[in-house]
């Protein structure tokens, strides 16, 4: 790797923090973190879920006042916990969660939040569009400028957050897990963009999950584990993949042995889920299904590949019973279910890991036990006494969560207090309960760290081996190649290609971009 004009050792670090400590109650989020980031480089920050990455990033951006320690930008000490001062010092942030007001149009949001000089208090729409035309090119053209934020698909919202941060004349850009929601192509574009920024002398700090992405993007890497800086910043060129993953995971804990899954298998091969020429209505940013034929049998994982926004969301919603079938039919477990309500499908053994785990998968403010028990609330139990025992619900939830190694303090804590990986384990503990026949898993490992990703993949495989059918929708090709027995590619709401292992990456890629049509 060529390092552009390696900074002289004496150069003032672009970002320097000294002995940062942050605690939330009894939880120590950061402990004695000291870090110097050389100017004009791309620095990666990695670590497991809950290692303190987001906290560190928030402290740097002035959004979280540290209990101890200090932050310097370009040699000047920042007042602690002052986001304005951080921005004035040339630091821009791209958050993990969306921060733009949903009711604004893209142009309005950019004008309001990007702090680009030259704006006026009173504006005309045409003028706004002119000002932001170049920026809009990055996110799908000028037409997007008058779209409201809430109508944008997740991917575009994410890109917009990045565009917004980069629109200011920032000297330091911090991105918290920017790739979590992006397609592989969009990730390449993002990294290309970060490299251009670096070449312009901007210092970039990016929080990443996948080691492959770290290798592709970063000049240096720093590793956080349990709130402490255990490695770095070290030059990527001087590190082996093994050293890096050891630093992230730490001494082997044995916490991640495979979890057995009980599925309702009876040995015989049969079709569990079948869609015949199914079409559905399009939504604002996603094509509807166009005459989809698809089946999932016992003991197989069927992968769905495709660039995001090509109907995957429609597919999962149609199977779940949340979007209506306009034409065609669907059979689940041998029963016609084309227009059956969602609850009946669930009771027939359909289980779901939704795309967005924090809004669709759990209720953030409901206690974990209630989130875990949600599937017990549907269906009628006419003969049963109407009053229930909460203690029994809580105990069973706790047992299931222990079995799936969800890390929690108390069953009554709100689900939002769990880390991303633990939220996914909570969802799996609920969905993979006995009675499962077909699991539809949408982006089940997105945004998860290394250990949690492996855990989820092992669980899916375990499910297949126990006789269940799995439909895996993912934008991670490596994951699809590793897990799928068959692979279907979606493009524009249709299935345009079907592959069997071993997979030809180029052929699949061509199908994803529509080159086969």
């Amino acid at each position, binding site marked *: 790797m060529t390092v552009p004009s390696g900074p002289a050792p004496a150069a003032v670090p672009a970002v320097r923090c000294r002995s940062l400590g942050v605690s939330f109650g009894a939880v120590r989020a950061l402990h004695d973190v000291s870090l110097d980031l050389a100017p004009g480089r791309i620095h990666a920050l990695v670590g497991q879920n809950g290692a303190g990455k987001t906290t560190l990033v928030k402290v740097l951006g002035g959004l979280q006042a540290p209990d101890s320690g200090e932050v310097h930008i370009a040699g000047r000490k920042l007042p602690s916990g002052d986001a304005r001062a951080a921005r004035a010092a040339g630091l821009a942030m791209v958050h993990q969660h969306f921060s733009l007001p949903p009711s604004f149009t893209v142009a309005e949001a950019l004008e309001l939040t990007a702090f680009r000089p030259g704006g006026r208090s009173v504006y005309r729409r045409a003028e706004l569009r002119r000002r932001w035309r170049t920026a809009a090119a990055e996110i799908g053209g000028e037409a997007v400028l008058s779209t409201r934020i809430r109508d944008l698909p997740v991917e575009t919202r994410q890109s917009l957050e990045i565009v917004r941060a980069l629109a200011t004349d920032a000297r330091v850009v911090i991105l918290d897990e920017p790739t979590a929601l992006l397609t592989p192509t969009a990730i390449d574009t993002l990294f290309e963009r970060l490299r251009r920024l670096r070449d312009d002398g901007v210092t970039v700090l990016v929080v990443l999950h996948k080691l492959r992405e770290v290798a592709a993007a970063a000049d240096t890497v720093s590793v956080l584990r349990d709130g402490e800086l255990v490695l770095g910043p070290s030059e990527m060129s001087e590190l082996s993949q093994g050293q890096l993953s050891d630093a992230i995971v730490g001494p082997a804990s044995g916490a991640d042995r495979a979890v057995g899954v009980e599925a309702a298998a009876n040995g015989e091969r049969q079709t569990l889920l079948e869609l015949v020429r199914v079409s559905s209505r399009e939504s604002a940013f996603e094509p509807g299904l166009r005459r989809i034929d698809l089946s999932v049998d016992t003991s197989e994982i069927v992968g769905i590949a495709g660039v995001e926004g090509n109907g995957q969301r429609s597919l999962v919603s149609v199977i*779940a*019973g*949340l979007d209506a079938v306009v034409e065609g039919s669907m059979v689940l477990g041998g029963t016609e279910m084309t227009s059956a*309500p*969602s*609850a009946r*499908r*669930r*009771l027939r053994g359909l289980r*779901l890991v*939704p795309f967005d785990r924090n*809004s*669709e*998968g*759990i*209720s*953030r*403010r*409901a206690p974990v036990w*209630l989130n875990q*028990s*949600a*599937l*017990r*609330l*549907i269906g009628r*139990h006419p003969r049963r006494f*109407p*009053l*229930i025992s*909460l203690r029994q*619900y809580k105990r069973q939830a706790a047992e299931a969560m222990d079995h799936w190694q969800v890390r929690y303090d108390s069953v009554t804590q709100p689900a939002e207090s769990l880390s991303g990986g633990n939220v996914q384990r909570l969802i799996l503990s609920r969905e993979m309960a006995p009675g499962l026949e077909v699991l539809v898993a949408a982006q089940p490992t997105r945004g998860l760290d290394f250990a949690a990703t492996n855990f989820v993949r092992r669980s899916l495989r375990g499910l297949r081996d126990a006789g269940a059918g799995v439909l895996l929708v993912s934008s991670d090709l490596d994951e699809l190649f590793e897990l799928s027995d068959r692979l279907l590619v979606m493009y524009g709401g249709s299935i345009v290609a079907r592959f069997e292992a071993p997979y030809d990456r180029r052929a699949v890629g061509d199908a994803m971009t529509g080159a086969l049509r």
Partner: protein
Amino acid sequence: MTGGLQRLASTVVLVGFSFLLTALILWISGYGVGDVFSGTIQGAITATGAATSTVRWAIPLLLIGLGVVIGFRAGFFNIGGQGQFYMGACAALVVALGWREGPATLVILCGTAAAIIAGLSWSLLPGYLRVRFGTDEVLTTLMMNFIGALVLQYLTAGPMRNPSGTGQTAASERIPEAFRITDSSGVSATVLLLVGAVAVLVWLLLERTRFGLTMTLVGRNPTMARWQGIDVRRVGLVTFGLSGALAGLAGAVELHGPGARLVTGFSPEVGFTAVVVALVGLLSVWGTVVAAIFFGGLQSAILFLPIVTDLPPPALVLLHGMVAFLVTVKLRAVRRRRTGSASEAVTS
């Protein structure tokens, strides 16, 4: 648990603060603050018949307030208690006056059933608009209050008017004495048993049934509830129905109890006060019971005070308003937290 204690403490502080502000305003206006507060205590507790009067006013507040609690649990803000209460009372009146010769028990039961159905329907209309079209239920339930008040006015000034009435405001004929479940004090064993049973049932529904848990999930995150196979619209309709049914029941209790007849615009504040009662009661069933007694005491004191002080009757309403104001400020924060994630998905 600490979170619950914190909320309790903040509510107690808020009510205490309202007392302070009211005292300050009364003091500035030149009234004897000491007299007013000792009068309040007398009017709510110690004077002859004051405790009974407190309970009498607590009953409608509690019934309507429990309806508000139910609505909130599933994420809906039903402030239409006043209109649902009026419609319930009107339905009970129509039954009682239309069947004067009927056996008393049967008439009371039918009147109560009619009141429940009337309150329920008055609430289901905005409920349907909410789950089907996403119409803001705060607006629609509020507007339905005015329509309910006009229906009451129409009945008392029109078909049900007491022709021999001499008062300035239109009033209906009295229902036969046999159809009453309390004397004019408004408190009897029957009513207390009924209200107690309702409170226990609501508590069981919310805290010990699968439907109660379902309501909680829908209230916290309807999107997630949909993904879990929960029929969010059905839950919404049932919730609105139950909420309105309780307000309708309060109307029947009012007519068959202390009222015995309906007067145009009677108990004009009870619907809104019940919302405040539910909020001060921290949206829990037992908290609402305590808050209803507290506000029942205030109402009783408001009626008593002019007897012992030179205070004009509306002066204590100030205290009322002060609590309502501060609670609303607190509520805004709660609603804002909820709407971000929740309200959209209910309609889709």
